[in-house]
């Protein structure tokens, strides 16, 4: 384990960081982004690495290029599948990197290696339903200029990328105002008729399935997107056999093979691992280890991960926020600053917060827990502050008049009187936390977000419900738990009708 942060230590306590594999096997962390092809390629790489003697972990469907890239730079991830165009235009957008040599040296400067081309290209493209495109007579992207009323639905990542919408719009002079969404949802938007134009990956199995016309990039805006593997240079020293095996995948996957594999997952409902293992067996004569988990085992694992995320973050948040709330109540000027800062934390978009913290805490549970702690602060701080400030003046004076020390007043009078409010704040945080923790899956923290994310990606409602239903149940259970806790924590005298 090379990351050694406080958060990791905390997680280590909580079953999450169980050690994996024997010491003699080099540990190899393979990562994938949150789309089907990335997962299949990562599973193939993982199978190859495992067969070459690696102790392999797959950090699956991380929430975007930046998340994976930061994790790779930090050493949380050793290898992941990427596309040359993404590296040139998105990751090295500011460095004018073009061509394989330039790319190799740019990666080498960051302690990374570019693997061989896998054998197919998966370019970005714009697509429309065949019947809509033919009705409007559209074949090329440049023709979209004349159709300002068309509704564009573009992947959130594509909207922001250096090689995505901003430069595409400029290159073609497109007038449309796109909406941002998840890639896997966009085909359904087309099918439902709520969208006219979406961005595609050219190897998407959905293109044929949904009868989509791919518009020609007539101004050659998009660069080549050759699929490659990128790994850390230090992997070559740690696991030379694994790296040699990864090189062996080069040139073995052509576009039709990739489209077929995508189709088996997205259209035939097979798991990425099963499809990858089929490929390994048939094309590379590699027997991949490790079968898929059953539904129950997955539920148990997700529940454990989710409870750990919520439990640890809530515990830390309470330990921080109650003293902060007390401080805020006792020192009004400082209190304004404390409430302001925790309020601002609340407004930071969760994915942004997660991505920003990856360089500090890595991918996985530690980052998710830190983010959840920050999000949990406000309700607890605010309610602690409000509960203490809301104590009736006669009671405050009575405590003073008894000659009690500030500490005794706080412990014996003020905190018990504020306890209903404090507990309500913790309850709010807990319930919000259960929901927010599902986002942990975007950075490999596991939990109920895992099946939700996969369910969205594969348009599999059953899978989605495997995450959504237990998450909702857990939120309800939290409510109930706090109802019971209220009886224990809030003094009986406060639950009686107030005097008069």
């Amino acid at each position, binding site marked *: 384990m090379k990351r050694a942060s406080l958060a990791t230590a905390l997680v280590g306590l909580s079953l999450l960081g169980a050690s994996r594999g024997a010491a003699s096997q080099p540990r190899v962390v393979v990562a994938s982004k949150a789309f089907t092809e990335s997962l299949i390629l990562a599973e193939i790489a993982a199978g190859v690495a495992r067969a070459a003697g690696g102790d392999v972990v797959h950090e699956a469907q991380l929430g975007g290029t930046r998340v994976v890239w930061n994790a790779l730079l930090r050493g949380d991830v050793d290898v992941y599948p990427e596309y040359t165009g993404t590296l040139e235009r998105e990751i090295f957008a500011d460095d004018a990197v073009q061509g394989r040599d330039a790319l190799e040296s740019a990666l080498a400067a960051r302690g990374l290696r570019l693997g061989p081309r896998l054998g197919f290209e998966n370019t970005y493209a714009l697509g429309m339903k065949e019947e809509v495109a033919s009705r409007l007579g559209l074949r090329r992207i440049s023709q979209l200029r004349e159709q300002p009323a068309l509704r564009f639905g573009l992947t959130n990542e594509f909207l922001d990328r250096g090689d995505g919408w901003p430069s595409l719009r400029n290159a073609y002079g497109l007038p449309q105002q796109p909406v941002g969404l998840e890639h896997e949802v966009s085909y359904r938007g087309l099918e439902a008729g709520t969208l006219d134009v979406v961005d595609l990956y050219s190897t998407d199995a959905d293109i044929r399935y949904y009868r989509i016309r791919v518009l020609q990039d007539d101004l050659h805006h998009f660069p080549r997107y050759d699929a490659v593997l990128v790994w850390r240079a230090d992997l070559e020293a740690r696991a030379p056999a694994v790296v040699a095996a990864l090189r062996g995948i080069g040139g073995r996957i052509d576009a039709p093979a990739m489209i077929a594999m995508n189709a088996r997952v997205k259209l035939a409902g097979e798991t990425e691992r099963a499809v990858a293992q089929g490929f390994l067996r048939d094309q590379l004569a590699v027997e991949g280890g490790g079968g898929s988990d059953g539904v129950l085992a997955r539920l148990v694992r997700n529940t454990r991960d989710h409870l750990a995320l919520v439990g640890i973050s809530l515990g830390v948040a309470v330990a921080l926020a109650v003293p902060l709330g007390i401080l805020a109540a006792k020192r009004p000027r400082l209190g304004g600053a404390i409430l302001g800062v925790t309020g601002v934390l609340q407004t930071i978009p969760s994915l942004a917060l997660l991505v920003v913290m990856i360089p500090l805490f890595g991918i996985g549970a530690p980052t998710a827990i830190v983010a959840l702690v920050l999000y949990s602060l406000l309700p607890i701080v605010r309610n602690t502050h409000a509960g203490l400030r809301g104590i009736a003046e006669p009671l405050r*004076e009575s405590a003073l008049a*008894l*000659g009690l020390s500030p500490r005794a007043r706080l412990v*014996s009078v003020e905190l018990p009187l504020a306890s209903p409010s404090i507990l309500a704040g913790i309850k709010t945080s807990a319930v919000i936390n259960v929901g927010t923790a599902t986002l942990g899956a975007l950075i490999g923290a596991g939990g109920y977000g895992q099946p939700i994310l996969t369910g969205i990606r594969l348009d599999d409602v059953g899978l989605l419900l495997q995450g959504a239903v237990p998450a909702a149940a857990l939120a309800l259970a939290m409510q109930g738990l706090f109802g019971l806790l209220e009886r224990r924590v809030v003094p009986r005298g406060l639950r009686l*009708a*107030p*005097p008069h």
Partner: protein
Amino acid sequence: MARARSAPATDADDCTAGLLAAASLPPRGLRLGPRGRPLAWGMTDASKAALELEGVSKRFGAALAVRGVSLACQRGETVALLGGSGSGKSTVLRLCLGLLQPDAGTVTVAGERMAPERAPRLRRRMGYVIQDGGLFPHLTAEENVTLAARHFGQTPSWIAERVRELAIVVRLPEPLLARYPAELSGGERQRVALMRALALEPDALLLDEPFASLDPLVRAELQEEVRRIVRELGSAVLLVTHDVTEAAFLADRIVLLRDGAVLQEGTLKDFLQRPADPYVTRFLRAQRLSLGEAE
């Protein structure tokens, strides 16, 4: 030690069974603390006034709430601070407790000058009862009474005995001690508040309109009880009230405040016979009091 525990033999009305029981308890002046030392608040200088204000003024923003008030309250003496609302009488009480700091003048408690750093210690020599008792709703009656004693390290046996004595003194049936304030009547709550104020054997008792929110019968009963109790305990009492008859009934001396300043000091008779200001007469008349009735 000005702690006469026995009831005055002449006051036959007050010689109840409860008082006899209280009187039969051992004298408490030299009671020892948990570490064998005399309790600080039990060893006060009897030669000094329990409570003394000298030229005390207090300003809230632009308004002068208390203007140069001087008064002294000896052990065994009850002084009523009488006045209308806004006359500054409650503010005087808060100044005595050190809940407010005077802008001018000094407050002295048993010979020691009240100052912020001394306030917690000096407050333990005073018992404070406010209109609705100010009982902590999260604590039972008994926990309210014993809270301070527990914090100041009294032994459980001392505390238990003290609670039993106090319940007898204020005539609170012992089963009520287990109840929360919300489960008690207004009169019962004030009895508990008195117990709490008396728990640490204070030199002075500060009562801020303690009967104001009680219904008339309960009020009359509790006024009698308080008169009996303070006579029996012999502590100094400063009573804030707007009720002339209450002041006359309970107090040895009345201090009439107007706009934060002392207008007249004396007995009700003095007020009626030699009013220092037409306001004095108006204040008494407003409460249907004239010379003939007072006689």
